[in-house]
Each structure stands twice: as structure tokens, then as C-alpha cells.
């Protein structure tokens, strides 16, 4: 793209450029420019200064939200791993029929809209829902408020993002050569030690892939934390939306958006250097 026209014609191959041009121009107008506008607004709204960044990086409220977002994303990633690993294992080591049924279920979950799954958790965790009823049956007189807490939004996010983790780990597990496991066994590895020193390292690429994907999506998650979370414990995306919708504070909102974007891109760049970005969703 940064190449001069004379060099292009030298090679007499302008075909790829002609084919790329419509999309390139489109992305410039409708992707790069709006993104640049966010960056510009973060420095110029309401007046040209660094005040927005100063406020966002030093204000107690914003620092708490940033920290909360990071901790939540890390915790959700860990939970997805703990939930996803056994399920991927079950899929990879079951009879084809069972494996296919579970795969069907995970695929279903993957393709079901975030909103639908968020709504389901409202039903499950609501005051008239089955979980509260179960607690009351077990003799808990005053069941705790489950909905609109950190607990409910975290649980729903784990459920929504788990398929990304499961798919990544499952793909790697399926490729493990059973001969490797057998030879480790013949050398005396058993149980926990076999898992710790042979199986787990072999699945590490899937874990890395899934974790990066879940962590990055969770950092910028808007819908579920806004609908299910506690209004007092917002995540960054929710706070950005709040600034824009309620206060029309485009400068502050943009500064937070740019920080979120930079952090996301740093993580993805590290990933890209090591594995290649196209592998992430593949």
C-alpha cells in the first residue's frame, strides 16, 4: 500500500491493486476515518489538551473501572479454561457419537446470540428463578441477590465465551498422537504426572489461543456486563457507553476507547508475532 505507482507499473501487474481498490477505499472511508475520529476527539473534545487522558488515567473512578475490567477479564479467562478443558477432553476422548452430540451443543451455544444467552441467565438467576427456588428448598431463608451482581455478569460471560476456549483446545487435543501418550505410559508416567508432564504441554497451544481470544473479547465486552452486572461495578465498555449516551462526553469516552483499543492491540500484536493473527479465529 505504501508503494509508488511507478514501481507498480514496472512489474506490469496492476491486477491485484485493481481488485483490492474497492475494498481498500471502502475501509479507508468507513473504518479508518471513524477510528481516527475517535483518536482525534480524545485530544480535542471539548478543547485541545491532554486533559481527557489525565482525567482517565489518574481519576479514582476510572482507575477502579480499568482495574475491575482487567481482573474480570483475567478471572473469566481462567474460569473458561477450567470449564472448557474437561469438556474438550470429554469430546476428544469419547465415542464419535457422543463427541458429535457435544460438539453440536457447543456449536449451538456459539451461534446463539449473546443477547439470548444473557436473557437466559436473567431467568436462571432471577428472584423467581430455579436457582433461588433451589436455595430456598435447601433451607436458605434469605437467599442472596444473584442478579445484577458481579457474580451474575461473570457467570454469563463465562458461559458465553467458553465455546471459544473449548473449540481451540478441542482442535489441539484431537491432533495429539495417541502413540505419544502410550510411550509416556510405557516409560512409567501415570495419572497426574502423565497429565502434568505430557498431556498438558501438548495442549498448551490451544490453551494460549483460547485464552487470548477470551481475554480480548472480555476486555471490550459491553452487552452482558451492562445488562447483568452491578451498576456500581461497571466495566470499561459500559462506562464508555455511559459517557457517550448519558453525558455526551465524547472526549472522555474517546480517551477511554483509545486506551482500550491500544491495550487490545498490544495483546494481539504479541500474539500475532508469535502465532499469526489469522490463526486466532481459524
Amino acid at each position, binding site marked *: 500500500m505504501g508503494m509508488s505507482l511507478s514501481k507498480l507499473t514496472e512489474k506490469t501487474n496492476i*491486477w*491485484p491493486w485493481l*481488485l*483490492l481498490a*474497492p*475494498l481498500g477505499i471502502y*475501509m479507508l472511508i*468507513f*473504518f479508518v*476515518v*471513524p*477510528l481516527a*475520529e*475517535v483518536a482525534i476527539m480524545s485530544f480535542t473534545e471539548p478543547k485541545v489538551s491532554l486533559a481527557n487522558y489525565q482525567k482517565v488515567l489518574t481519576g479514582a473512578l476510572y482507575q477502579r473501572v480499568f482495574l475491575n475490567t482487567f481482573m474480570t477479564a483475567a478471572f473469566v479467562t481462567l474460569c473458561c479454561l477450567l*470449564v472448557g*478443558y*474437561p*469438556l474438550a*477432553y*470429554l469430546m476428544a*476422548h469419547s465415542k464419535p457419537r457422543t463427541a*458429535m452430540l457435544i*460438539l*453440536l*451443543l*457447543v*456449536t*449451538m451455544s456459539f*451461534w446463539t*446470540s*449473546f*443477547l*439470548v444467552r*444473557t*436473557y*437466559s*441467565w436473567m431467568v*436462571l438467576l*432471577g428472584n*423467581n428463578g*430455579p436457582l433461588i427456588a433451589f436455595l430456598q428448598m435447601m433451607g436458605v431463608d434469605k437467599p442472596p441477590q444473584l442478579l445484577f451482581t458481579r457474580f451474575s455478569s461473570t457467570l454469563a460471560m463465562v*458461559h458465553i465465551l*467458553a*465455546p471459544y476456549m473449548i473449540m481451540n483446545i478441542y482442535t489441539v487435543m484431537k491432533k495429539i498422537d495417541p502413540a505419544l501418550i502410550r510411550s509416556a505410559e510405557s516409560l512409567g508416567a501415570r495419572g497426574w504426572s502423565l497429565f502434568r508432564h505430557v498431556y498438558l504441554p501438548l495442549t498448551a497451544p490451544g490453551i494460549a489461543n483460547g485464552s487470548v481470544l477470551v481475554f*480480548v473479547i472480555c476486555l471490550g465486552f*459491553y*452487552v452482558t456486563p451492562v*445488562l447483568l452486572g452491578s451498576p456500581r461495578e461497571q466495566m470499561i*465498555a459500559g462506562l*464508555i*457507553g455511559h459517557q*457517550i449516551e448519558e453525558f455526551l462526553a465524547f472526549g472522555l469516552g474517546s480517551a477511554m*476507547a483509545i486506551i*482500550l*483499543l491500544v491495550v*487490545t492491540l498490544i495483546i*494481539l500484536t504479541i500474539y500475532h508475532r508469535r502465532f499469526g*493473527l489469522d490463526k486466532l*479465529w*481459524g
Partner: protein
Amino acid sequence: MNTFMRWAGFVVVLFIAAPLVIVVPMSFSNASSLQFPPPGYWLGYYRAYFTSVDWLIPTWNSILIATATTILTMALVVPATFALVRHKFRGKGFADLMMLMPMAVPHIVMAVGYYSYFGDLGLVHSHLGVILAHTCLSVPIAFLVLSANLKGFDRNLERAAQSLGASPAKTFLHVTLPILRPGLVISSLFAFIQSFDETVVAIFISGRDAETLPRKMFDSIRQEADPVIAVISTLLFFVVLIGIAAPYFASALRSRAPKPSRPAGAH
């Protein structure tokens, strides 16, 4: 270790499945607020959905926007994919990466950008604005699917056609396109779903005039949790189920040996 993993796996199956299926009984419930198990059953909320303009217009908007987005996305992505897969040129690595960028940027960031930018252009609260934004967001997934297909394409088939006297245009029309059809279909389908499900950007720019179904659902869940949402969720649940199960059954009928396929993308 093995036994532990299997038991844990079965528990997780329940965790994944429960929220998916619970919307089905909920949609037949006659409770006016969230209550499970339902106190009684009726079809009232189905009638409410199919007769309410408040829900049908957003549904129609979403279908319209997703269809237009798919057409525009494919018109832009198909030629670009041919350029990126079949040609070598300087800056190709950069162009490849740019194709994936909209997937890497959190949607809330794009939402802020579109809200302000389309505000300047007078495109907020319009179908066109949502279509233009959704097309950007659909490019990566359409490109990933299509380029994977095109990379696996055996170019000897084209050479054979041309050596038999077919012109490049005829070769493209009668050889390349038919072989690529499954890839094109899946790629379009992913672009459609990406747009149909997209929530965050739609919340910020679709307004009341171009309100999409996800935006309407989001507002409704936030305000009153209208039981009609359970109806829509159930309908979407069955659309997805049919969409995923149909290929299994089709291949089972054809070969009696269904092959599991995995989704190639994310939204």
C-alpha cells in the same frame, strides 16, 4: 485423571446446555414477569410477537440490513480475496492484516467512532448508516472463510479449461465459480449472521428509525424484560438448531457417515 476429566466434562455439558434450552419453556409461559418454572402455559406471547409492530418492524429492519450488508460485503471481499490469495505483491502482508483489523477492534470503540462520524454525515438513525458500518465488521469473517476456500482450490482445473479453449471469462464463470460456490455460500451466511447478531454498534447508531432486533431486545431487557424476548429467543434457537443440524443430516443421508464440522469464525 481420565475419570475426573470425564465427570467434570459432563457437569460442564449441563452448564452449557441449561441456558440454551430454558428459553423454550419460558416462551410458552403465561407469567408476566420472569418466573421459572412457569406457573402455566399459553401461546399468548407468540401472538403478541407476531401481531406487534413494535417487534415486527425491528425484525424486518434486521433482515433488510443483514441482507444488504451481505451483498455489499461479498461485492467488496470476493475480488479482494482473489487479489490476496492469488497474487504476490509488496505490502501483501500488511493488506492481509488490515482485512482482519475490524475483528480486532472492540465494537464499543467502533460504536463511538460511528456515532460521531455518521452524526457529521447525517447517517445516524438510518438503514444506510447501519449497513455501511456492519459491512466493515463483516469483512474479516467473510474474508477468512473465502480465503481458506480459495487456498484449497486446485488451479489445474482452470488451466485444463483454458487449454481446452475456454476464455478466461468463461473459465471463471463455468469452472471457478461453481467450484467455489460452497465457500461463497458459507462466507455470505457468516456475513449475514454477523450483521444480524451485531448489537453494540446498532445500539448507538440505529436509533428509532432503523432499530434492529438486537437493539430492541437490548432495550427491552434493560427496561422491563418483556416476555416476548423468550419467544424471539426460542425462534432464534430453532433457526440456529436447524441451520447446524441440517448439514449433519444431509451428510448422514448421503454418506451414512456424518462428519462433524466446526465453525470457522467468531462474532
